[in-house]
């Protein structure tokens, strides 16, 4: 870490923490650990101590040693939430000093659904920008888990600066039906890892046309928006056209259907030194033709290590009436100086205001504040309903007479 202090602030690495929450989140992060990324620290959090012990990543945090005794949240998001709240201080320590925190979680279960929003909130409280990557359950996991996942996603969106969701069902289409399950899951996890790498690359790599966090946020922010990410690679002479066709037919974009409905699109092109302007033009023309009427942001970067390979990362969002408003907000925030490439703690008071506002907008499923009025000794008898009033309930309560 001395390294950071020695380099000038403008050139230092953006410090990124990736927190894998719950079983699926941990697996994705484990995958990510295979090739180390500069300036990225990884951590895994789970309520299941046994599953965590099998992983090779440090730090490992067992959530809710008291709430769950290290025996997993059992599919109950409330327990996952309680466990995360219990270990809030250790999560805080992980986020400390980070500029951007990725929270990777598989939603639908207990730990991912319950703890991920808490982790995101804590990260946000420690003044980091928070980006959620949510893995949605397979369709065969049933309606209950889907519903639970949808609720978790809402919560995560309310606290995070942006959320990308990766439905497992769509990821499944990336692999062949006959692929053995271990391989298939491995493949899917690697896609998640690549997603993280791609976003990391997007944000940290110095580009010809730079994409910053504000732009990413503008695409992924809308409360009701559905953001998906697709990555396509191609090489050879015809690489631009090939990559464009791959993207348009990408299973993560529902074979292009999502692109036509998208109202926010972010495209990041990464290629070797031979990258030409014509390729950008060709690629963007193809994408523009599909996503008619969407707000498109383009980033481009050159990486000598890629040779003749071209990688396109496309993030598209659809739905969410507030996404255009969110874009405006993001632009405002950007002008206010929310660029992650400045040291996060130099202007704390400017960063403070928009964050506080978001925090109050945090969603939570609560009980309606209806008073349950006891009918006392008449609890079990037939109610005396007279003109719509239950006369068994004390008169003074029905009339709202205060006794003091």
């Amino acid at each position, binding site marked *: 870490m001395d390294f950071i202090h020695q380099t000038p602030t403008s050139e230092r690495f953006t410090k990124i923490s990736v927190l894998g929450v719950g079983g699926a989140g941990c697996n994705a992060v484990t995958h990510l650990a295979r090739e180390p990324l500069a300036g990225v620290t990884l951590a895994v959090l789970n309520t299941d101590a046994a599953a965590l012990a099998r992983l090779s990543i440090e730090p490992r945090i067992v959530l809710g040693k008291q709430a769950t005794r290290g025996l997993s949240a059992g599919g109950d998001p409330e327990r996952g939430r309680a466990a995360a709240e219990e270990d809030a201080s250790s999560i805080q320590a992980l986020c400390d000093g980070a500029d951007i925190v990725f929270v990777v979680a598989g939603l639908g279960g207990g730990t991912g659904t319950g703890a991920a929003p808490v982790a995101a909130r804590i990260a946000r409280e420690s003044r980091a920008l928070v980006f959620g990557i949510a893995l949605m359950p397979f369709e065969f996991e049933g309606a209950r888990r889907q519903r639970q996942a949808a609720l978790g996603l809402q919560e995560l969106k309310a606290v995070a600066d942006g959320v990308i969701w990766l439905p497992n069902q769509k990821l499944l289409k990336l692999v062949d039906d006959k692929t053995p399950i271990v391989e298939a899951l491995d493949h899917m996890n690697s896609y998640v890892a690549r997603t993280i790498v791609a976003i990391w690359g997007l944000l940290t790599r110095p580009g010809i046309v730079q994409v910053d966090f504000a732009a990413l946020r503008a695409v992924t922010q809308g409360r009701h928006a559905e953001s998906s990410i697709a990555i396509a690679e191609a090489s050879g002479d015809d690489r631009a056209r090939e990559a464009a066709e791959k993207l348009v037919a990408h299973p993560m974009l529902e074979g292009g259907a999502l692109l036509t409905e998208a109202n926010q699109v972010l495209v990041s092109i990464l290629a070797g030194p031979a990258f030409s302007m014509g390729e950008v033009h060709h690629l963007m023309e193809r994408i523009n033709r599909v996503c008619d009427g969407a707000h498109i942001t383009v980033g481009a970067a050159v990486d000598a290590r890629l040779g003749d390979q071209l990688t396109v990362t496309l993030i598209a969002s659809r739905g969410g009436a507030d996404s255009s408003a969110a874009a405006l907000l993001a632009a405002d925030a950007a002008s206010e100086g929310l660029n992650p490439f400045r040291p996060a703690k130099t202007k704390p008071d400017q960063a403070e205001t928009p964050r506080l506002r978001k925090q109050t907008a945090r969603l939570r499923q609560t009980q309606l504040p209806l008073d349950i009025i006891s009918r*006392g000794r008449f609890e079990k008898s037939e109610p005396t309903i007279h003109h719509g009033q239950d006369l068994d309930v004390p008169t003074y309560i029905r009339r709202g007479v205060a006794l003091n």
Partner: protein
Amino acid sequence: MFDNSPVIVGLEIGTSKVCAVVGEQNASSGLNIIGLGQSRSRGVRKGEIADASVVAEDIRNAIVEAEQMADVEIRSVFLGVTGGHIRGFTNRGVHPVVSADREICEEDVEDVVKNAKAVNLPAENYVLHAIRQNFLVDGQDGIIDPVGMLGARVEVDVHVIHGKFNRLQNPVRVVKGLQVEVDAIVFNGLASSLALLSPEQKEMGALVIDMGGGTTEYVVYSGGNVKHTGVLAVGGDHISNDLAYGLKIPLSKAEDLKIKHGAACFEDTDKTKSVSTESQLGAPGKTINLEHLRKIMSLRIEEIFELIEQELVGAGLLDYLRAGVFICGGGARIPGIQNVAERYFQLPTSIGKANSISGLKSALDQPEFATAIGLVKFGSMQQKKRTRQGFITQAFKETFGGLLRRS
């Protein structure tokens, strides 16, 4: 088989008490109360039986006590019934007079009454009473007996009191289970009004409110006829429940406080006063502001009156009650209830006392026994009718047949 003894027994299975009153038709054809038995009721909620075995025990105790006091054997009773399901309404029957000379005969009267009774009720409902009111001949109102008059058309109003058959049968079955016959079932409100009102008061128009433990019955008389009846399944139990809930005290304490310190209205001086409950069996004593206690009570009582008042305004009867309001039942014991009723109905209000009956002073003076005494009176009226008809078997058929055949 049929016992035509002059002993008439009224049995009321109330929410707070079960009470049996023994009356005797004395030589001068006056009615004399000779026995009274009562026991605390434990198995009744809102006027209807909730625990039949407990109720049977309570009835037995009350009857045994009444038997000892009157020194008679009780074989049959007039049973009072109530409950939120009981409703009253007035129906008009029309009959054209077809005879050549346009003279109204007995058959015409029978037919018109039959027409008026033919009300369209759901199958599970049972008509408790069909009370004949005045006749109209060719639109001329107020005719008491049209037989022998000339006219083209006879009409009659019948006040029908009906309830759910199965729910009315429950108390009958419990009583029969004790080897006691049921002469007739009578709506409690009607019985109370019979005990309370003199013929003159019925003529002038009166409202009888019987505020019991679980239900409040009301009956309106005008021009000598029953004009309106109704039941609110709200009573003294509700007041205790409100107190228990509002003052956060056990129900038994609430009951106790209601009797000792309750009132239907509160004064400014109550604000500074407080009452305390004694601690017992682990429940600590509590000091309670008298104003709170009385406020909760008064709100409930006022609401009951308000609901009745709304009902009467809807029926357009409030202006016909020149004799005033009569309150009976345990609720009549609440201090100040007279003033509250006077304020609500703008009519002179009195605590009802059984009249034109002699006998046990202790029973007659108390508003709680109005219903049971009224049942005895109902019984004596029935018996008079029977002896007048002279056909005991037919009378038997009338009383039981209706009950058993439910039509």
